[in-house]
């Protein structure tokens, strides 16, 4: 089943194409990471998909509901955390949760139960009776996540959910996202690529309003796998590196120290031959191998490569 179905969605501001002909399908229960530099069109896309902006062209369905035309059925099924969550500062965290629960027409018992559950989940139970005006940026972000979940949304939109959080807060939110994906489809935009790598099953990369690629994280990593082999040995590998320099299908062998551990890195000029013959070369060296892998690129590496050189065919 498709949770988010976008066809030809465009948004122009005069001559500026904030979003240009976006076609996208996000399956149910996926955690979809939407990546792009500043001004790429991430927030515009989220605004269009949640009904807060009117498209110039195209259409979209979210959780089976048509987006736009004041369709309130959409708001029943989604949760939204905007990039900068704003609250009525005179309310307490608990009052705000109660308010959004009432807007979702939950029963008083359900509101009370969900409020306590969610405040516990985002670790705001103790601060629940304090005015939101006195909350830190991180606390506001966590309250924003809690309020977006009160209606048990089928699709949850998170615009930069971890940007305002400290490392511990970020880890907690990412853990929460992983837990939520059992019942919810999550569409999150982020600048923090390591976060996307940790939680997202699918990613889309957008630049200048154009979607450049959509894929699972694994498929992207395979597609953009660099032909670099990494090896670690128990003994000194200086001699071994010298011997690698003489092999014509290898290039740039070197010892690189990563986190205090010396590694041998070598680039294959002929990846298939290297895959077949490098293990034999290592065996002949007489060294004790402790790690051997064809290095996978991080999402950050892929992101930079795509934005610099375009998508690999």
């Amino acid at each position, binding site marked *: 089943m498709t949770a988010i179905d976008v066809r030809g969605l465009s948004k122009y501001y005069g001559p500026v194409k904030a979003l240009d002909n976006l076609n996208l399908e996000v399956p149910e229960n996926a955690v979809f990471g939407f990546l792009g530099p500043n001004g790429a069109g991430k927030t515009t896309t989220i*605004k269009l998909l*949640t009904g*807060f*902006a*009117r498209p110039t062209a195209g259409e979209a369905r979210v959780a089976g509901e048509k987006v736009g035309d*004041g369709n*309130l*059925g959409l*708001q*029943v099924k*989604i*949760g*939204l955390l*905007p990039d*900068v*969550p*704003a*609250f*009525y500062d*005179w309310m307490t965290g608990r009052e705000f949760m109660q*308010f*959004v629960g*009432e*807007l*979702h*027409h939950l029963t008083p018992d359900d509101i009370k139960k969900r409020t306590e559950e969610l405040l516990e989940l985002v670790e705001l139970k103790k601060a629940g009776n304090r005015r939101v005006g006195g909350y830190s940026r991180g606390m506001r972000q966590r309250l*924003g996540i809690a*309020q977006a979940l009160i*209606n048990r949304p089928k699709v949850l939109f998170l615009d930069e959910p971890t940007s305002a959080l400290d490392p511990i807060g970020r880890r907690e939110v990412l853990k929460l996202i992983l837990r939520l994906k059992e019942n919810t489809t999550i569409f999150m935009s982020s600048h923090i690529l390591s976060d996307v790598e940790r939680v997202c099953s699918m990613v889309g990369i957008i630049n200048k309003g154009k979607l450049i690629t959509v894929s699972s994280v694994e498929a992207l990593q395979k597609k953009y796998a660099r032909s670099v082999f990494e090896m670690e040995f128990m003994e000194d590998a200086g001699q071994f590196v010298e011997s690698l320099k003489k092999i014509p299908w290898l290039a740039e062998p070197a010892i690189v120290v990563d986190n205090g551990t010396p590694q041998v890195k070598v680039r294959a000029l002929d990846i298939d031959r290297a895959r077949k013959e490098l293990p034999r070369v290592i065996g002949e060296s007489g060294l004790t191998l402790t790690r051997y892998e064809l290095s996978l690129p991080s999402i950050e590496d892929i992101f930079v490569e795509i934005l610099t050189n375009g998508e690999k065919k």
Partner: protein
Amino acid sequence: MKGFIPLLRKEIQEQLKLYRLVIVGGIFVFFGISDPIMLKYLPEILKMAGSGQMVIQLPTTTAAQSLAEYAGNIGQIGALIAVLVAMGCIANELKSGTAVMTLSKPVSRSAFVTAKLLAMSMTFLVSMILGSLFCFGYTVWLIHGSVVMPFIGLNLLLGLFLVFCLAVTLFFSSMYKSGLAAGGLAIGVVIVQAIISSIPIIGNFMPGKLLSWGTDLLTGTGTGYWWALGITVVAIGLCLYFAQRFLKNRDL
């Protein structure tokens, strides 16, 4: 009007927690007390200021004069306060992002704007009741005499005029993310309609004519400006309608 009741409850709480009711009520009560006192003691103040060298004969103050003075002040100052209270009601929410937070829930735009107008109107209603009670009480006590039914009629017309000022400001507030711009335009509309309402014939159709009608009720003169009443009600409805249309059609 989905979500109207929780929105109205929130708006009323906001009026209380941000002390809007206390401030607006306080100003109305101030005029309710000060106007009869001023009228009562004005001759003596003038006598003292003149040090007995000059004698100014003032006609005896009547209850109708005292109540009309209060109504005149509330008509002007109240309109200004209405604009100040309403100018940021939607604009500030659009600017800060709270409108997005609220409207991301199953809430209709019409419920969003109507709840705001109703809550602000309630603040003014309570303030007017308080101000009027004080004015009436002080008038009976100091000046003696009363005109109960005409004063109630005056307050109803005055109240409707202030709701009109709130509605116009709310309409502009839905158009701009700046409360100041909304307030400026609303004051412009209130001033322009006040100028037109002083022009013969065409003026009889302006909301500002409700104030003249209210004063006429106290003195028992003049006729009712029913067209002005009807047009004011329609204008309030149109302001609400177009405010929610603007919110529906704009990118938030």
